[in-house]
């Protein structure tokens, strides 16, 4: 049992951790040992990969790597971008109110760093860029602010891996993210969480998508974490804009993951989809989804599927549909339960053992089609699903 179990308020939680700028940081990637590189790779961050167009890596508060070779893509630590662009007034704290809660206030007052990534007009990338927010020492509170801008007609794919040192157990990550998808642009944002058992995670994310723009979000969290509380909101502001959120979440015993997405369909003919697959092996999951239809001819769908594989876990699915005008097409389906026995027997009748049958079903359940995921990350995820299933 951890002392952190007794924390009552957000303010109290903040006090339990030391600011990241008080912890040691490293100067160079060569200081990372083999264990750490393996850990990063499992989180989708591969420092040797040829098919990444750029890499941003922040350990605690320090930016250790920030480089992108593609002309037309700009990648900077947010602290530099703020200086270079005179406070980034067009983007910084424009979608999220800094007074929203204790964590936004903390990030506003004590910013460690974060990234600014911008795809210039018409620039399209073939491979993803990778960003890693890495907590390297115990009891550190990392406070990050990220801004991504996909300018008109551009295409960008970012893989963000958030993780902790392999031997570390406790930490706090606060991540403010504001994403801007301009007219006709496309942003694929894949986030992999690979935290430790006593880590608290408080992302605060908002996205705005303009006319004919597309935002695709993939969120994967398969490992134990103390507590995640996250509820990104995407506003489809321009006609024909599209947003899709896919989440794959596994909560082992001791993890509390309260997550979901909201899509506000403000403009006509916009499309939204939220798909989540959650598994509790004894952990507590709140799977939220909120679709708000505010304009005619919109179409939105929400799908929450939960599998209870532990005896004591909780999955609380909260799908919400909110229509403000008559001409909307909004639907949801939610199902929570254990694996159907007939599915297990079906596979056993083909010669599989009960254990293999169960893992085949679990793998299938978590097999959400994640667009644009590089093969090696997909392989890592398959392995992680396998491991987490075997470990239970």
């Amino acid at each position, binding site marked *: 049992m951890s002392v952190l179990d007794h924390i009552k308020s957000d303010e109290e939680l903040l006090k339990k951790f030391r600011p990241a700028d008080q912890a040691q940081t490293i100067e160079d990637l060569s200081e990372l040992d083999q264990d750490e590189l393996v850990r990063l790779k499992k989180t989708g961050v591969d420092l040797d990969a040829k098919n990444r167009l750029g890499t941003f890596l922040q350990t605690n508060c320090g930016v250790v790597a920030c480089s992108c070779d593609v002309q037309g893509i700009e990648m900077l630590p947010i602290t530099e971008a703020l200086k270079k662009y005179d406070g980034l007034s067009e983007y910084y704290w424009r979608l999220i109110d800094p007074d929203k809660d204790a964590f936004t206030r903390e990030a506003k007052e004590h910013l460690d760093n974060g990234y600014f990534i911008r795809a210039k007009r018409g620039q399209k990338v073939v491979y993803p860029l990778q960003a890693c927010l890495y907590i390297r020492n115990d009891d550190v509170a990392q406070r990050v602010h990220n801004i991504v801008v996909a300018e008109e007609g551009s295409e960008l794919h970012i893989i963000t891996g958030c993780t902790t040192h392999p031997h570390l157990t406790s930490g706090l990550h606060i991540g403010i993210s504001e994403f801007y998808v301009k007219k006709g642009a496309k942003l694929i944002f894949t986030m992999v969480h690979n935290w430790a058992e006593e880590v608290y995670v408080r992302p605060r994310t908002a996205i705005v998508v303009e006319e004919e723009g597309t935002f695709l979000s993939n969120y994967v969290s398969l490992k134990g974490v103390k507590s995640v509380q996250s509820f990104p909101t995407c506003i489809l502001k321009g006609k024909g804009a599209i947003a899709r959120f896919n989440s794959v979440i596994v909560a082992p015993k001791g993890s509390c993951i309260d997550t979901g997405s909201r899509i506000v369909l403000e403009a006509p003919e916009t499309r939204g989809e939220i798909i989540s697959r959650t598994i509790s092996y004894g952990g507590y999951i709140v799977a939220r989804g909120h679709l708000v239809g505010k304009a005619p001819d919109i179409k939105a769908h929400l799908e929450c599927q939960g599998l209870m594989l532990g005896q004591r876990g909780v999955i609380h699915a909260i799908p919400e549909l909110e229509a403000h005008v008559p001409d909307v097409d909004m639907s949801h389906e939610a199902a929570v339960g254990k694996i159907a026995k007939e599915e297990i027997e079906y596979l*056993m*009748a*083909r010669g599989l053992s009960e254990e293999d049958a169960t893992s085949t079903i679990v793998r299938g359940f978590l097999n959400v089609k994640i667009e644009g995921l590089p093969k090696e990350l997909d392989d890592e995820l398959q392995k992680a699903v396998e491991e987490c299933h075997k470990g239970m």
Partner: protein
Amino acid sequence: MLHIEDLWVDVHGKEVLKGIDLYIGKGETHCLFGRNGSGKTTLLMTIMGFDGYQVKHGKIIFKGEDITHMPLNERARLGLGLSFQRPPTLRGVKLRDMLKLCGNGSNKGVQLAIEYGFESFLDREVNLGFSGGEIKKSELLQLLSQNPDLTLLDEPESGVDVENLNVIGDMIRRLLEKDKHRNRTKSGLIITHTGFILNYVTADKGHVMLDGRLVCHGNPIDIFERIQQNGYEECAKCQF
């Protein structure tokens, strides 16, 4: 191949099979007729070993081994295979992967799917949105990949249009090695209501089940014609 002796089976506490005796030799195909609810499916499910089919008395010998209380998957590995009437949907599991699982990693099922024009289904989730005929094809492809010695088929023709009956028939013939006239090793037990399948697959013997008992045995075509003429009641007074 299969030897059933005085088999009594309960389902949810209700006596369904009441003393079944059945012998299926190596290379033989048998047909099972009977009204809905007479116990035909229960017999197949009990032979395969599904949970909920409680053997109260008697035994099932398969390939010389007493399998009466053997787990389902071990029976499958020993060479029993069953096509499901209404199989569940496996979300996220592609038919391609399912066929490989059935074939213990072999690619045979995938190749057969291509051969039978079922290629476009390989990357679809198993049974999701499949029509009746497509389910039958998918089931038979899985069995072909699994390659059982005794195949249990529960109404393989139901829900299949006439055009596809040909394909289904061909798959079953292949499963049961119907092209081999000597040294055939594959056996089958087929439940049929319509008898259509008999136009595609020759069967060696037919049995009629009435209220949990096998009451009539003989040439399957003769039996089927008799059922068509006189109904099942006549079968109770087996003339064969």
